[in-house]
């Protein structure tokens, strides 16, 4: 006896290849932008050997732009992904479930693509609110899944190429009908096209809505519409948000009271804060930009790293290890590629927006360099070590 499983029937007419193509290409664009900006950030944070000595310091707003875009395209992907998956949802129930080994392989690739993309977007969104509900490393899994997504997406595009080509353009206006049943199908097609355009308008509105209420955390003109972003660029000590507070980093009053800057190089030396303040001070305007998607430009004042290195006997910059007083959490030690250390804009900053650095911004001294991930703009700096 054969048991008939109840299978859902879908009456809606937009679960079709044309709708999937129209939404899918927008989603593909968002995924591609997310992927490229994400890879860029990864390599700026962890430059592989072959990039060492070649990291770009221009444009100064590069990291701000790319990571703002990363989170904006990730959030825009939410409506796009949901509508795309809704469109193709009936495919989940195709019968028979597996027709051939090739069909099985294709379904497996879809399972990989869908599950990775859903988890990736979910993890990204929760990372921006610093809420880690999963038992594994955010950074490593987010990074690995990005490659799985882009790989399975290419497989998906290859499998669907004929369908995508067929449905890339809007269907042609129906010809005058010869048979009565053709009139019916032409009328249905025209109705579907109107319905599809309405759906696409709805998708555009949803993408616009989620973008407008979140993008203000990095896009200054949208600051006043910042209703649902995890950060507001104006909220923070000295008008600037913070990722790790002095308390969270374990900075103690004792450590600060005995603070000195050590510079290790061919001619090592030590400086007190007063001696540092007596050196030539430079003012720069540079953004602080976080991989979590918030950023803001600020005025910094302090001593050029290249001046500090020259005093240690290094004339043309060098790879540098920057050590913080920080005792808790990651990024207490960072490495700075040579191009930053010879750049006029790279400072050991002592002041921010006209005031002495607030404790949460790294008092007494922090790194600020152009086109650099915020996580590497090390705070509470106590030692600079010339590496090469």
């Amino acid at each position, binding site marked *: 006896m054969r048991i008939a499983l109840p299978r859902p029937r879908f009456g809606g007419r937009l679960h079709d290849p044309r709708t999937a193509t129209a939404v899918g290409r927008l989603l593909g664009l968002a995924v591609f932008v997310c992927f490229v900006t994400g890879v860029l950030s990864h390599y700026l944070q962890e430059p592989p050997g072959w990039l060492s000595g070649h990291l770009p310091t221009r444009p100064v707003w590069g990291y701000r732009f790319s990571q703002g875009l990363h989170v904006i395209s990730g*959030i825009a992907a*939410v*409506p796009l992904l*949901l*509508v795309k998956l*809704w469109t193709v*949802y009936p495919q989940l129930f195709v019968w028979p479930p597996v027709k051939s080994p090739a069909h099985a392989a294709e379904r497996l690739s879809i*399972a*990989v693509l*869908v*599950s*990775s993309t*859903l*988890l990736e977007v979910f993890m990204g*969104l929760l990372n921006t*609110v*610093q*809420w880690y509900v999963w*038992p*594994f490393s955010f950074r*490593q*899994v987010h990074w*690995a*899944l*990005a*490659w*799985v997504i*882009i*790989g*399975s*997406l*290419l*497989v998906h595009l*290859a*499998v669907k190429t004929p369908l995508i080509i067929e449905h890339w353009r809007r269907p042609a206006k129906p010809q005058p009908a010869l048979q009565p049943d053709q009139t019916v199908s032409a009328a249905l097609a025209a109705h579907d096209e*109107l*319905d599809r355009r*309405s*759906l696409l308008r*709805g998708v555009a*509105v*949803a993408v616009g*809505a*989620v973008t407008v*209420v979140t993008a203000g955390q990095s896009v200054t003109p949208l600051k006043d519409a*910042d*209703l*649902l*972003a*995890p*950060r507001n660029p104006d*909220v*923070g*000590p000295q008008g600037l*948000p*913070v*990722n*790790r*507070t002095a308390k*969270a980093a374990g900075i103690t009053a004792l450590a600060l009271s005995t603070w000195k800057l050590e510079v290790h190089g061919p001619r090592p030396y030590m400086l007190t804060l007063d001696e540092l303040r007596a050196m030539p001070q430079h003012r720069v305007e540079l953004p602080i930009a976080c991989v979590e998607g918030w950023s803001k430009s600020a005025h910094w004042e302090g001593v050029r790293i290249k001046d500090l290195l020259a005093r240690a006997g290094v004339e043309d910059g060098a790879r540098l290890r920057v050590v913080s007083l920080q005792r808790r959490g990651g990024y207490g030690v960072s490495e700075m590629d040579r191009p930053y250390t010879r750049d006029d804009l790279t400072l050991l900053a002592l002041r921010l927006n006209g005031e002495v650095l607030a404790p949460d911004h790294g008092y007494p001294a922090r790194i600020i360099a152009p086109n650099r991930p915020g996580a590497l703009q090390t705070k509470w700096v106590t030692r600079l070590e010339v590496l090469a």
Partner: protein
Amino acid sequence: MRSLTALRTLLVLLGLGLCGFGVFQFVDRTAPGPDDVAEVLEWLAGAVVVHDGLLVPAVLAAGVLIANSPVRRVLRSGLLSAGCLSLIALPMVLRAGKSANATVLPLSYPLNWGIVIGVTLVVTASVSWATLQRSRRLSGRGKLKS
């Protein structure tokens, strides 16, 4: 046609290679044990179960509810925006006030969520009303269009 087949074959191979690189990166960078691999797989499967098993059926049910409305398309767009805004607001609403860092989640998220839903409601209602007025004017001449 043959060049298209070649291109598609190339895409499949490249795609498989990139997937493999992703898996390699996970293994290489985290040196996972069997439990770690199982955890990631569980979360991947969990994402699909929640989406395909809960979210989409709820969306389809909403679709059935508005199916016979004369302003079905407007309601669909309104629900889509409200739903996506809510999904994005949810982590912030749930998480607000729980961080020791006052610059993380500094806004009144429940209030702001209410504001964006309220705006969506007003816009959806206005467009629905305008659509109804228009179709009433046209109803003398032709079929009612939703």
